[in-house]
């Protein structure tokens, strides 16, 4: 009985914390809309890891800092037009996806020749990482990371986006649909095909489920 009461109290506290966090985030966004840079710094600190990770999965290592900067500059510029503060997260992911799309478009047009150089550097770094690792489990982990990275690279950008946002960033399908501006049914279909393709890639590497 006492345990149940404690559990319910803990749950209430957690909900209250979540509410407070949500409220403070909305307040932060409102202050940012009014031009408060200190609040924008807090928002940056809160979201930069997610933005960075998404961009890294979508575009790789090359010019990652520049891409992150681009996302936050666009966010700052567009914040006054954001009507509902609670959609900030979805909106920021949307900006990240736009920046990633622009980057890929430039690469496809061949405007940016640095990409290949950076990819080569990534491979070199991977080799250095391998040489530093002593433990077998770490070695396996690095190997799997490399397999996942190569698997993501081999997927189409549409499939990759859905897989990254849903499976790696752990966003619900509805939010993914909003970010990519596509129906939920399309998200489901793309996710299904992306996972199947990924499974095949992993099977080629001797990894099966």
């Amino acid at each position, binding site marked *: 009985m006492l345990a149940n009461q404690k559990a319910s109290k803990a749950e209430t506290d957690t909900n209250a914390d979540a509410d407070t966090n949500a409220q403070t985030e909305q307040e932060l966004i409102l202050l940012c809309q009014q031009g408060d840079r200190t609040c924008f*710094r807090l928002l*940056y600190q809160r979201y930069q890891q997610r933005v960075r990770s998404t961009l890294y999965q979508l575009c790789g290592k090359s010019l990652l*800092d520049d891409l992150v900067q681009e996302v*936050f500059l666009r966010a700052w510029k567009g914040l006054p037009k954001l009507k509902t503060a609670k959609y900030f997260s979805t909106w920021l992911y949307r900006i990240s996806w736009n920046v990633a799309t622009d980057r890929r478009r430039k690469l496809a047009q061949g405007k940016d020749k640095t990409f290949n150089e950076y990819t080569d550097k990534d491979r070199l770094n991977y080799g250095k990482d391998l040489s530093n690792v002593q433990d077998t489990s770490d070695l396996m982990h690095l190997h799997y*990371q490399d397999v*996942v990275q190569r698997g993501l690279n081999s997927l189409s950008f549409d499939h990759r986006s859905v897989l990254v946002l849903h*499976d790696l960033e752990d966003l619900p399908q509805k939010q993914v649909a909003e970010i990519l501006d596509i129906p939920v049914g399309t998200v489901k279909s793309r996710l299904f095909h992306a*996972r199947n393709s990924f499974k095949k890639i992993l099977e080629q590497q001797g990894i099966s*489920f």
Partner: protein
Amino acid sequence: MTNSPKDNQNNLVSFLRHNQPLPPQACPDLEQKILESLEPRRFRDRRHYKTVTWTIPSAIATGFLFTTVSFGVRTPRIAIEPNDLENFLVDNWHDTLNNQNHSAIDDSEIDWLLPNVYKSKQALSVSAQ
């Protein structure tokens, strides 16, 4: 015993999450660099919008007032006194007569429709005869 497709998917997802490649650390001064690159907010737009909102109605009101006043000044006042009315009627009648006289003096319609060239050609033909 084989895994169900759902189990397979869950296994794949957990494998991906566990082994997802982690992004490299950001440049230490990236945060500062971003904050320094932020453009200052322009609140002029709102003020401008407010100014426009106030300017347009006041301009319309001023225009309306000006038109009303000038129209009131220029419009002839209606004669209320019988003498004024009589004078007005007499003046109007004289003006009408004057207009008729004037129109009688005017050249005929044919006259002013004929081009000058025609007259000169006629003169030439006379000289040829």
